[in-house]
């Protein structure tokens, strides 16, 4: 009965966002039933269309674009031209939400700030995302996602204990900003349902990342403590708690959190002499002597096949995980059993997977998934069906290069 209704049916979104954070947010919103109209510059489209992994010889449909733009309609508007600005505002009049993550100055130059938009659509919800936010002395600063880790204090606590700060192995700030965009938009939509009022949300990528590690900030503001790289420790007296080498150049994380788990661990490793060492007699002793303990554990794991050891330990109730590479994550039996990868079909790429939204509803719905659009693929849908423009008007817009 409920399986076909999507949570955001009836919500329309004007999506001026590009690259990663914004597109991640709007594809999730699209999958949840919102009508997402992606608006790209006809001669300055989303940078991710061009790669870095092109799907064909043409430069307008890359893997990156495929991953981040499912479940959207796409039209082209040159917002820097006065006629393009007008057209963008016409689209916005049909929308509940405007989202953008251009560098500071682009929407301002186009005359599409919240103040501008509010004049034609008073109850609009507008969300802007930028590196450091749209206010303050450094509002114009530019970034590539991973650089912001350094600014936000994430590098300072990453790395081997006692060594220099290290790099994080992925880009956290953009996906984090993406899901924060979604949260802010949903809260604002709920607010609008209750009050009829829209609002402007000025999102800072840095702030969303700083909020990832609140306990480290509080340890400093309350206790004056500055933490360095954490290694693989999560504190809490957990030992063994590290990543250990296995056969065939693979690694296994093991985390023993209490006495019961230690006893299960000893059973799996077969009670060698060192497990009876008095230093390792209780969780506090193991924590105090964790460096020595790590050596013994590694001595055991070196003789083990990583997946076999993971299954044996987990079976016994001990947290353990193989250090999976990208291929193993794609082929992961658990993620696949949960349908995390959804295959879509498109003329440019054939059948390829995307990552669905990372949550499930029971009994449903599953969400709507269709492949990332070609540049301007839905110009007709947007300009004729939604805006009701005539052939003549479209011809005129094309002639003046406002649309493709």
């Amino acid at each position, binding site marked *: 009965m409920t399986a076909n209704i999507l949570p955001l049916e009836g919500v329309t979104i004007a999506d001026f966002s590009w690259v990663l954070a914004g597109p991640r947010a709007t594809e999730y919103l699209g999958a949840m039933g919102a009508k997402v109209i992606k608006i790209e510059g006809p001669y300055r489209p989303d940078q991710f269309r061009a790669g870095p992994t092109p799907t064909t010889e043409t430069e307008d449909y890359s893997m990156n674009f495929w991953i981040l733009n499912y479940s959207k309609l796409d039209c082209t508007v040159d917002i820097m031209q006065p006629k393009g600005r007008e057209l963008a505002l016409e689209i916005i009049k049909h929308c509940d939400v405007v989202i953008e993550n251009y560098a500071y100055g682009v929407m301002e130059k186009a005359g599409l700030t919240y103040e501008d938009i509010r004049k034609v659509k008073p109850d609009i919800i507008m969300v802007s995302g930028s590196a450091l936010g749209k206010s303050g002395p450094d509002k114009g600063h530019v970034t590539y996602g991973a650089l912001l880790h350094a600014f936000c204090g994430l590098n300072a606590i990453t790395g081997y204990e006692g060594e220099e700060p290290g790099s*994080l192995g992925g880009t956290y700030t953009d996906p984090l900003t993406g899901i924060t965009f979604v*949260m802010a938009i949903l809260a604002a939509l709920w607010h609008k349902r209750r009050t009829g009022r829209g609002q402007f949300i000025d999102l800072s990528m840095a702030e969303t990342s700083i909020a*990832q590690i609140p306990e480290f900030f*509080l340890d400093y503001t309350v206790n004056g403590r500055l933490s360095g790289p954490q290694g693989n420790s999560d504190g809490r007296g957990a030992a063994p708690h590290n990543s250990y080498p296995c056969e065939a150049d693979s690694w296994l994380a093991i985390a023993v959190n209490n006495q019961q788990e230690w006893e299960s661990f000893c059973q799996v490793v077969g009670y060698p002499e060192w497990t009876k060492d008095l230093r390792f007699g209780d969780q506090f002793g193991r924590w105090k002597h964790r460096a020595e303990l790590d050596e013994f554990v590694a001595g055991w794991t070196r003789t083990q096949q990583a997946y076999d050891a993971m299954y044996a330990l987990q079976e016994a*109730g001990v947290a353990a995980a193989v250090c*999976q*590479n990208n291929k193993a994550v*794609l082929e*992961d039996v658990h993620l696949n059993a949960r349908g995390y990868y959804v295959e879509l079909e498109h003329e440019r790429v054939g059948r390829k997977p995307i990552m669905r939204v990372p*949550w499930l509803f029971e009994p449903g719905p599953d969400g709507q998934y269709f492949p990332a659009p070609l540049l301007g693929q839905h110009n007709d849908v947007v300009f004729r069906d939604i805006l009701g423009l005539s052939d003549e008007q479209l011809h005129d817009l094309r002639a003046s290069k406002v649309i493709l």
Partner: protein
Amino acid sequence: MTADLEGILSGLRVVEYADFVSGPYVGRQLAELGAEVIKVEPPGKGDSARRTGPFAHDVPALDTSLLFNYLNGNKLGLTLDISTPTGHELFSGLLREADVFLYGGAAAQVEALGLDHHGLQKTNPRLISTYVTPFGLSGPYRNFKGGELVLDHLAGLSYSTPGGLTDKTKPPLKPGGRHALMMAGLHGAVATLLALFLREATQHGQAVDVSEIEPISSIQLFSVMQVAFTGQQGVRGSGEAAPFYEATDGTVTISPMQEHMWQAMVHVMGDPAWASEPAFANRMARNANRKAIHDRVTEWTSTLPKNEIYQSLQASRVPAFPTNTVADVLASTQIQARGFFEQIPLPSGENATAPGPRYRFAEGLPGIRRPAPRLGEHTCQILRERLHVTGEDLVTLFELGII
């Protein structure tokens, strides 16, 4: 009781039975928006985050964990042993009046404690149940033990951390912090709001299944999809490593990816002669001479403080940032100008400076006004007012260890 917390979700009633970080972080975000969140904890020991550092002034006690106090601000606190029939009955009574049941913990406990959605929904068809568990409610790893280290390893993050690893005898790492758990908290809040929208249309509450493994796996979107598109597998420790350059007081990271950025950086450095050598003429040449570039650029950076380098490069629109400690972040004029950090109240009565909401609204986001509950702080009040438990019964329940 909640008049001072008027917000977007005012009137929404949430009952939380969630441990440690991910589930409680969902509750915190809803409470930040004005929802009433009643946190139910096992009597005696409470949420395990209460026993997790750091602690205020390094004095460990059940009410002083800064992690716990950050994650549970604005909530009301109740202790109840829901593994007893009487405790479960009282708990079900709370859920009859609730909009959202929020669970955070092991998936196996959902059934063991009689917390499955269909059972709970019998007396309240509009109830939404959000389950935040390590691996979700289905799938072969459903009952695996999780935790940050395990999740980061399975999701492919540790494989590429630390970026730029040269000594492959060193182990894979989890990044500092608890990203998998915090990410799950963010996604749990989003999915719960979506279920509210859905309920508006269907009048029926959903079960929401949020795993900790999926949100953190979504971080590695490019490297994982690369396998499907090109078959290209990663190399351990090869994760994105923005180069760090020594400054007089720390390091800076700089990434002049496009030609105009490189030219701007050369200009900021004072147009040194080496920059016009053929080895640095274009992006391909520069890629091949990264080590040489690092040495030359360091000659410049090592004479200047990190903030001066950062500001001068950004003034010419070159992506660059200082490697900040948490103290540097707090001292940042930009962060201060936006008033991002806020004062959160602690149970001791003092205030602590903490990261504020990730997004700011002109109205409807009251933030954290009330300290996290002391263990069992509102037990008697809630049981009396909401479930009409008599004073006499409260005494017996306490004597029996049920509350």
